[in-house]
């Protein structure tokens, strides 16, 4: 009992080393996961570069989901307003406020190109406005 019992059973070393190991483990994991999205973005962009640039924008494919038909281009339009035009009918179906997950799912159903990246661009352009609690609204 007492401090002698701690020393006798390597208590100080166990506590110090144990705490350090747990902290090190989670620090390494947090650093690793903070890099995942960069690697994923890099990988996706690498794939894009490998594709030859078309001389003219492709006409795209008409896709119908839940009664809504969209002309889906093979690549993201360069102009954010064109992107917004593409997403506007989907948003109209989702209502005034919606979660990004819903928008992503609908975009994926239409097979729209790079939905994650596009939704991020729409947020950066303040076309998608956060309403708090994970909900967003459309600003156009």
């Amino acid at each position, binding site marked *: *009992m*007492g*401090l002698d*019992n*701690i020393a006798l*059973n*390597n*208590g*100080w070393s*166990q*506590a*110090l*080393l*144990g*705490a350090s*190991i*747990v*902290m*090190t*483990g*989670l*620090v*390494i*994991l*947090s*650093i*690793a*996961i*903070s890099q*995942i*999205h960069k690697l*994923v973005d890099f990988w996706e962009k690498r794939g894009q570069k490998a594709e030859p640039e078309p001389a003219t924008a492709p006409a795209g494919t008409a896709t119908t989901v839940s009664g809504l038909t969209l002309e889906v281009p093979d690549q993201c339009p360069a102009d954010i307003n064109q992107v917004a035009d593409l997403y506007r009918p989907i948003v109209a179906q989702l209502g005034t406020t919606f979660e*990004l997950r819903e928008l*992503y799912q609908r975009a994926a159903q239409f097979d729209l190109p790079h939905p*994650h990246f596009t*939704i*991020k661009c729409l*947020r950066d352009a303040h076309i998608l406005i*956060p309403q*708090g*609690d*994970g909900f967003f609204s459309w600003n156009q």
Partner: protein
Amino acid sequence: MFDLLMSFLTNTGYFFISQDIRYLIMIAVGCVFLYLGIAKQYEPLLLVPIAFGIVVGNIPFFKGFGLGIYEDNSVFHYLYFGVTTGLYPSIVFLGLGAMTDFSSLLAQPKLMLLGAAAQMGVFFTLVGALFLGFLPKEAASIAIIGGADGPTSIFLTAKLAPHLIGPIAIAAYSYMALIPVIQPPIMRLLTTREERLIRMEEPREVSRTERLIFPILGVLLCCLLAPTALPLLGMLFFGNLMKECGVVDRLASTARSAIIDTATIFLGFCVGMSTQADVFLTPKSLLIFALGAVAFSLATASGLIFGKIMNLFLKKKINPLLGAAGVSAVPGSAREVHLMGQHEDPTNYLLMHAMACNSSGVIGSAIAAGVLWSFNMMG
């Protein structure tokens, strides 16, 4: 015939209770827990099986009939096998992984440090338990209560000090149920109002690929560092991979419903039964309860203080209340942090961020358990 009647009467539970009042006390404790679970709805999914287990486990009987949880070849002994081998906690972790969304953690990896910091309570308590004269394996089992993770506490105790499973499990689950009582005063004591009002920035959207890579990366990084955490973290990340990969939805769905529910039923009931009065009501158990409260409080305080320390170095300050959610009591502590934040500012939503700390606390406490296990196996 009279002899036969007397012989029967001396084998009834009434007779044994009249000989040892401790059984009656434990049955009363079980009834109080049942009341709290059913009427007050305090963690009913855990408390109801545990409470009924306490009542059943404390009906005294003639030893040697092969009835009790500690008697070889009894039905309850076979059910208890899942506790003593760490089987049920592993299965619970599988289900937990299949129901956990790590998106908020992936969007804000720095919050993982709060989950690590909250584990410091475990190691402070380890020293405290050794100071009070507990054996090293017992001290490690008591210390893990600070991780505020029932299955992890049971797992480690089953490996190191199986004779303490009853008090440790009851202490761990009791303190989880008492989060609304224990954590808020510590949160208020260690943070200023200005700190509690800090708003967190909206986390970025996390892609499916990231969520898919995380369990693979997580199991590799954590379990290569602490292989003894494999039974818990291996199952946790496997469950999460099933959820995120999207091609085994049926398995993921079963893991997060029927499988985890089955394991929880048997785990809770057997833990309750293990509180048989003659092995549970001892001065040691009271000491374990006291140390458990210290462990849980220190874990909460460690997380909060580390959150404040992080703010010294961060440009964009984090709300230090989130540190209290670094203990792995999912989702109770996250809910408490959210409520505390909303108490100060009803438009401040901290739940999503607190869940990130909570889920990293689950990983952290499993690593801590693995580390303590390996220390005591090497010693």
